């Protein structure tokens, strides 16, 4: 059993990544949706993202910094293996970020930056999904590292699955924030995405059984989690069905929250499949943990600051709540 400090920290890191997935996920999704939007709709879509832009990405930075401090062994083992995908992801995020800034500074160059924003979003999402798949497969630790071990049919598939997922999140966020024509368009796109997400989830779940290095050979290892493994797809599927109904009934709030529900179930499934490893399937969370003095010191800060953070994350969303009626600029 791992000690409590390491457990709390893996929870905090898991939570930060989840916040990133939900908050920056819809931003990435909106980026992917840009080709389906006309000029005016794009401006509205960008305005949905604008006020909370920096805060959304900060959760990724928090997850990274906390992993660096709390599990340095994991950080220093995983990152060199994922060298190329991380480089690509960072470059994609960089392109998306500057495209977002520059988009507002230009009229003639808007098309160019829209494309950069779209490609950056698509690239970053695809890579995040690929890395997720690589985690489920597990890493081979060797010297020198196999530089391309993350690239497999399975990881490519999870990459595409995440693209569908984020697009769904983006579409349902736009449903929440917009009206009339754009909203109607999003209802139709969200339905399409929801179908794709459903298929992806089923295929990923089955495929995981084949690529997972432990599950097929030691199923008893998962015995006491069977009820969870059974329950999660059930909740996921119920959310999906609920989502279809909500979309058909032209609900505004429900699609967004049900999509988050689907993400939560998938995320929980992912955690169960790699637990208790932090570098699947060779280094456990307990083995990678930093000395207690570091974990305790970080925890003091997190205990004070996390509630404050959550409060004003909520607050800054609260200020810019409601429908986007007009586009905003600097």
């Amino acid at each position, binding site marked *: 059993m791992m000690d409590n400090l390491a457990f709390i920290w893996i929870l905090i890191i898991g939570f930060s990544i989840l916040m990133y997935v939900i908050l920056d996920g819809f931003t990435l999704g909106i980026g992917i949706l840009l080709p389906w939007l006309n000029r005016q709709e794009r401006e509205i879509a960008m305005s949905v993202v*604008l*006020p909370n*832009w*920096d*805060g959304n*990405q*900060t959760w*990724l*930075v*928090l997850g*990274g*910094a*906390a992993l*660096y*401090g*709390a*599990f*340095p*062994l994991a*950080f*220093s083992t995983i*990152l*060199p293996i*994922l*060298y*190329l995908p*991380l*480089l690509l992801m*960072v*470059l994609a*995020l*960089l*392109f998306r970020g*500057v495209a*977002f*800034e*520059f988009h507002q*500074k*230009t009229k003639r160059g808007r098309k160019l930056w829209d494309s950069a924003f779209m490609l950056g979003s698509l690239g970053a999402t695809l890579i995040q999904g690929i890395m997720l798949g690589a985690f489920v497969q597990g890493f081979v630790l060797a*010297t*020198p*590292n196999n*530089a391309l071990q993350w690239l497999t049919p399975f990881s490519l598939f999870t990459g595409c699955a995440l693209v569908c997922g984020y697009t769904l999140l983006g579409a349902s966020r736009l449903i929440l924030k917009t009206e009339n024509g754009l909203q109607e368009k999003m209802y139709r796109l969200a339905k399409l995405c929801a179908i794709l997400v459903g298929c992806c989830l089923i295929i990923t779940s089955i495929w995981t059984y084949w690529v997972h290095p432990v599950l097929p050979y030691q199923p008893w290892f998962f015995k006491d989690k069977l009820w969870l493994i059974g329950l999660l797809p059930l909740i996921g599927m119920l959310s999906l069905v609920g989502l279809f109904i909500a979309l058909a009934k032209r609900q505004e709030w429900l699609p967004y929250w049900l999509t988050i529900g689907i993400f939560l179930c998938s995320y929980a499934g992912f955690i169960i499949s790699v637990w208790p490893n932090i570098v699947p399937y060779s280094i456990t969370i307990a083995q990678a943990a*930093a*000395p207690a*003095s*570091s974990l305790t*010191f*970080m925890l003091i*800060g*997190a205990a004070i*600051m996390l509630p404050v*953070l959550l409060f*004003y994350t909520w*607050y*800054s969303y609260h*200020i*810019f709540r409601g429908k986007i009626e007009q586009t*905003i600029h*600097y």
Partner: protein
Amino acid sequence: MLDIELLSRLQFAFTISFHILFPTFSIGLATFLLIMEGCWLKTRDPLYLSICKFWTKVFALTFGMGVVAGIVMEFQLGTNWAGFTKKIGSVLGPLFTYEVLTAFFIEAGFLGVMLFGWEKVGRRLHYLSTCLVFCGVTISAFWILAANSWMQTPAGVIVTEHQFVVNNWWEVIFNPSTLSRYLHMMLSAYLSTGFAIAGICAYYLLKGKHLAFSKRCLAFILPALALLTVLQIGVGDKVGLVIHHHQPLKTAAIEGLWDTQRGAPFIIFAIPDQHQQKNLYSLAIPYAASLINTHQLKGKMIGLKTVSPSDQPYVPLVFFSFRIMVGIGLLMALVALIGLWLFFTQRLYSSRWFLRGCIFMSPTGFIALLAGWITSETGRQPWIVYNLIRTHEAVADITLSQISISFVALILVYLIIFCVFYIRYLGRILRQGPTAEVAPTDSVFRYLSTTEIK
């Protein structure tokens, strides 16, 4: 292994040099905006509002660049410096986590309000947002400087076989060089930004545009710069003392001293030759180096030859970058003092030669800043954590092709994004210039006239 190490170092140096410029500019601008918006709230003079809105545009663009370039830095610590991370992640990681928790989120959360909230929230709440963003950038710099200073003057840890275990966090954070180096960095951020602002306003004045705006900015900036340059010289001196006490070899490389001696000379110019372990063509002021670094005419200075050449930093780089930094610093002090004199004799806005000088000076702060960082980081070599971990031990287990691909990709992307487009859009904001603001009418309760009621 040497090639991967060298390329990793170059890549890190390249990315961090680009990165540091943006936070530096953001720190300075946030501070400037804090003061200007305060003036606006106090005086209700719409000119201040126009100043705030204009520099907020520059701030938004710059801050955004800093965020995206910063994400590259964070990942690089793992992808390229895994050996370093594995050992000291538990020491520096908590500092970075604190940076995210106490600074990044505050900046990110309130930046939106600061940029887009002029009409959405009240004046006081808006000013509170500006204050919080200012606190964010100020605190953020502190954590980074604490982490970097710990690499220069490590303290508060017990070294075990695999890991560093912290036994005193206070000593880690407030290690011997943190405070002086932090002040030095903050002042250089203010100076760099101040000279950039002065240069832009001088340009407007020379072009005869935005006169009221530029005069108001300059009237604040030039006296501030005069004060700051004087302060910076004092703090720089303190940093020198701390370095000499804790990293005597770095001081030796800065001063180009090969032999241990008392009453060491300050070498104005020389070409340090690492192979022959001596200086060529040197021009020196007797006793000055001892006076500067120990505050005693006959103070003892350690020479580079006390260690084997393999334990010495690469002297020419440290030596010259230090001289560039100090040279620009002295030039800045001169310009700021002349500006102050012109300001008090009421000739500032009409002295075209001085305004041209300001335009020339506008990027120099950033150059001095980079030169200072090069001095500081290369002077620490061959150690990544001074006297504890060597740089070659810190390199990640990656292949030459991986580092080559990433380095080339980063160079291309950075040149395109930062050198072409950032400059271009910054230029566009500057060309558009500030827009005039009308004095806001306070909403006063009054009865509606009958014609207004429908």
